[in-house]
């Protein structure tokens, strides 16, 4: 028998030390491993470097909870819900340091990490101010006589946190057809450890019926946890849409540290289980609405 990877969210997140570099799946309002992010905050993790392509509400919550002091990625935005205010305040006051990368530069850093290379080059960013301020980006000449390129130093996150549609208890991970960002395409391959939450744990025989959906083999995965609606309030196509009211509720309090603290008590610190959390966000009726996507389209 392969090694069993099934565990609880508490034990899984217990593997992440203070100060770790944590790559999280996220694209503005999509597919973030929110149950894992809430647990990081519950456990009081500090000094994290968070890596994401385009971070949304998980970045704002971790900024508000002072879990992170570095962000590495291409952008932070909740798209239609606006800028992440807690994150923005923390950056403007110098509490969070940003390493801003273009998409190809982030992909190159992660790609080098995944393939055990010191760096990979890109032709993106040339002519911008983003190269000179970043010690992990260096202009180098082409050894074959062509144009200069930007060497992007390998990035190896300590852990990647991802949310997937299903897995077996051995950590073989499946995603249903949907948008696939680098956080699934390359991040978990670059990271030293992979912690996955999934909508459902299934028997391995279920995976065999659609092996084309399996994107990461169990031996690359360190922990797998069943968390239905684990990406809420972000969307998780095709299962459920993003939660507009919940995003707006957070935005209304995010600028005010006291309001944010009360909000986090209610939605992060107090609920002991995912069921309790889902009850607090509106229970079955809200979840049924989100499954229909109607209120988000």
């Amino acid at each position, binding site marked *: 028998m392969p090694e069993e990877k099934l565990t609880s969210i508490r034990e899984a997140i217990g593997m992440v030390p203070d100060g770790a570099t944590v790559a999280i799946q996220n694209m503005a309002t999509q597919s973030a491993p929110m149950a894992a992010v809430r647990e990081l905050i519950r456990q009081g993790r500090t000094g994290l470097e968070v890596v994401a392509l385009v971070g949304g509400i998980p970045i704002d919550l971790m900024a508000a909870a002072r879990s992170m002091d570095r962000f590495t990625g291409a*952008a932070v935005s909740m798209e*239609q819900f606006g*800028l992440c205010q807690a994150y923005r305040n923390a950056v403007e006051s110098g509490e969070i340091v940003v390493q801003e990368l273009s998409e190809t530069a982030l992909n190159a850093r992660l790609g080098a990490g995944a393939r055990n290379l010191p760096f990979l080059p890109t032709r*993106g960013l040339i002519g*911008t101010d983003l190269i000179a301020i970043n010690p992990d980006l260096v202009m180098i000449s082409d050894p074959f006589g062509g144009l200069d390129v930007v060497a992007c130093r390998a990035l190896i996150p300590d852990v990647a946190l991802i949310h997937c549609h299903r897995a077996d208890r051995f950590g073989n991970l499946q995603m249903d057809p*949907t948008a696939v960002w680098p956080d699934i395409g390359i991040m978990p391959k670059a990271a030293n450890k992979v912690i996955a939450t999934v909508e459902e744990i299934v028997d391995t025989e279920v995976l065999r019926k659609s092996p084309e959906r399996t994107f990461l083999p169990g031996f690359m995965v360190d922990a797998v946890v069943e968390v239905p609606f684990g990406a809420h309030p972000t969307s998780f196509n095709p299962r459920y849409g993003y939660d507009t009211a919940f995003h707006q509720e957070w935005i209304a309090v995010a600028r005010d540290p006291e309001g944010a603290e009360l909000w986090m008590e209610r939605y992060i610190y107090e609920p002991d289980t995912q069921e309790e959390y889902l009850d607090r966000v509106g229970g079955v009726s809200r979840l049924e609405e989100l499954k229909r996507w109607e209120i*988000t389209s």
Partner: protein
Amino acid sequence: MNDELSIDWTVDELMITALSATLDNNDQACNGMASFIPVIAFQLARLTHAPDLVWVASAIGLDARPERVPASTLEAPLWRDSVMYLEQYSTFWDIVLNGSWLQKFCVGAAQLDRYGNGNNSVIGDDYHRPKVRLPGTAGLGDMGSIGKRLFFWNPNHNPRSFVEKVDFVSCAGWLGGGDEREELGLTGGPELVITNLCVMDFHPETKHMRLKSVHPGVTTEEVQEATGFELLIEGSSVPETVVPTVEQVGLIRDVIDPDGMRLREFGR
């Protein structure tokens, strides 16, 4: 084709038709987040002069066919009904970086200077202690440097957006003007800027931003006042921007965006 001009067009529709006119039948186009004007322009082009235009919705969904423009230009309702989903790390960027495809990009920037350099990073002198932290460069930092033709849109033309010099270059435009881009080996570059007041292009030699046309009812003085640097204005009179046709207005209002999502770009 019905080319009767509309008499009740609005400026959102004018920006959409101006952007749509830059797209050809053989183009591929894609959009990013909060990009209602480009998304509607692509669909309009496809329904009128460029039926074979390939649209990669949200840089994910090939040839998407949304019933109507949804509240997000990044989420599944926009791209769910596509021919193919492009995986970002490999497929999407392989296609973009290849050099043969997706030659034109519609881009927005919080600040743009006289040479079309864009800033979506920080406002203020100190990058590490900014007055305002903006979202970040995302794909913009790539598009300015990899030979693409850039078409900027900005629904709020004002002196804080159009500045003498951007606080930080997060998208390479014509840099310091002249042949500075060429010297770095960069091809492509900014071509057109479409705002709620006017259309601007760049002088072929100096690369200085130049007034191309003003929208009906707007004066060149108003445009200059809303611009934080001296615009290049050639000749004694600047032409008016061509207004949308009755057909185009009908398609935008009734077929493509019946919920008026485009107005969100104007704070409505």
